[in-house]
C-alpha cells in the first residue's frame, strides 16, 4: 500500500513496529511504532499518557511527511 500510494506521487509515512520489514518493503519515511499490539500508544501507561504518546507520534509523522528525503529514512 505504501508503495502503491507513493507511485501516484503522494508521500507516505509508514508507522509500524518492525522497522526492518518497513525497510524491506521499500517505505521511504518510517516512524517506528511502540509495539505490534499497540503501534500508536501504550496502554500500559494508562489512557491519558497513551494518548500523549499517540499525539506526539502523529505530529512527528506529519513533520516527516513534509521532510524531503533522498533515501529510506527512519525518523526516530
Amino acid at each position, binding site marked *: 500500500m505504501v508503495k502503491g500510494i507513493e507511485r501516484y506521487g503522494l508521500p507516505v509515512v509508514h508507522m509500524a513496529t518492525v*522497522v*526492518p*520489514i518497513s525497510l*524491506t518493503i521499500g517505505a521511504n519515511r518510517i516512524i517506528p511504532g*511502540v509495539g*505490534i499490539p499497540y503501534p500508536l500508544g501504550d496502554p500500559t501507561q494508562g489512557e491519558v499518557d497513551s494518548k500523549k504518546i499517540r499525539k506526539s507520534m502523529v505530529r512527528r509523522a506529519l513533520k516527516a511527511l513534509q521532510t524531503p528525503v533522498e533515501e529510506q529514512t527512519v525518523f526516530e
Partner: protein
Amino acid sequence: MKLELGKIAINDIQFADRTYVEDHVLYVNKGEVEAMVLEDDKLLECHLEIARPGDSTRITPVKDVIEPRVKVSGGEMFPGVIGKVTPQVGGGRTHALDGCCVVTVGRIVGFQEGVIDMSGPAADYCPFSKTVNLCVVIEPKEGLETHVYEKAGRMAGLKVAAYLGEAGRDVEPDTLEVFETKPIFEQAAMYPDLPKVGYVHMLQSQGLLHDTYYYGVDAKQMVPTFMYPTEIMDGAIVSGNCVAPCDKVTTYHHLHNPVIEDCFKHHGKDINFMGVILTNENVFLADKERHSDMVAKLAEWMGLDGVLITEEGYGNPDTDLMMNCRKVERKGVKVVLITDEFPGKDGKSQSLADTCEEATALASCGQGNATLQFPAMDKVIGTMEYIESQIGGWAGCVNPDGSFEAELQIIIASTIANGFNKLAAKGY
C-alpha cells in the same frame, strides 16, 4: 546431560475400568480422566473420544497435541507447569507412549486453531492422522476470558498426558535410546575435528494467546539462554499458543523436535552437536534487536562453526529469523535457516515478510497458502462451527454437507517450520 528415552509402542487406545498398558494397547479409565480435567473450575464439561488412523473423523478446533510420558527416574514430566519446577528434565530415564497422543479440543480460543482429519486428503499433511488420539473435548464456563480458557485447555491436556504416561512407568520399553551432550569444554574436546554445530530455537512469544513456556516461564519474559538438547526432548518446553495451525509447534513437536533428532543422528559422525540456543519472538523491536544480539553472542561464545535456525509462526517472526541470521553470520558462524513460506494463494507474493543478504541457505518446509478440498467426515470431534473463521478458511468455504475448501494452513503442523512434515521445496 544424558537422557535414556524408552519408547513403548502403542497401537490402540480403549476405554476400560482402569488405566494401564498391556500388549501395546493403552486402556483408559474414562471417568477418572474426565473427573481429573473437571477439577479445574474454569471448565464446565469434559468428555473423551478416541480417533484412530483411517477413521472418517475430523477433529477441530485443535489446541494442542501431547505425547503421554513419565519420568521413570523421578521428577515431573513438565516441570514448572505441572507440579514442582525441580528437578530439571533432560537427564535420567523417561518412558514415552509412542504412537498415541492426547489432543485437546473445544470451542475456539482464538482463530488460530486447526483441523486433524484421520483419513482423506488432509491426512497426508498431518502427523496426527497417523497416531491413535485420545481427544479431550472441553467446554469452558460461560463468560470466561479467552486467556483463562486457553490456560484451562492447556493444563487439561498436559495433566491428561502426564496421567496416561504413568501407565508406562513399569512397562518394559520396546526401544531404549541414549542421548548425551557434555558440558561445553568436554563436548568441544570430544570431537575436535568435527564442525561444532548449534541449534537456534526460536519460541513463539508474541503474547495475546501466542505463548510458549520454558520450565513454566512465559517465553516472552526471558532472554536467550543455553539449553541441553535433551531438556527439550524431555518436557522443558510446552506450547501455549494459538499460532497458525500449519506451523504450530505443539508440545508433541517440542518433544520430537526434528532438528534436535537429526543433529543427534549426525553427532560424532559428521558434526559435533554442541547444544541449543533458546530464544523468542517478541512484539517489540528493542526485544528483537536485544535478543538477536544475545543469540549471536552465545553462538560466538560457544565457538560454533555453524547453526541451524528455526522459527515458529510467520510474519513479524521472519524479522527475528533474519536478525538472528545476519548477526550470527557476522560473527563468522555459518547459518542455515529452516522455515515455511506464505506466498499467497497464487504463489506470487514475497513468501517471507523479511529478508537479509546473509540469508543464503534456507530449507523450506512448504507453503501454507495452497488450497485443498476437505471431504465431509462421518464424525466430527469438537465442532465445525468455526471453520470459516479459523485461519486458512474463509466466509462461505464450508458446504452444507460438511465438506469445505481451505488453505493448508488450517491443518495442524502441515507446514511446520522445523521440518516435521513431508512438504519440501527442491533446489535445482
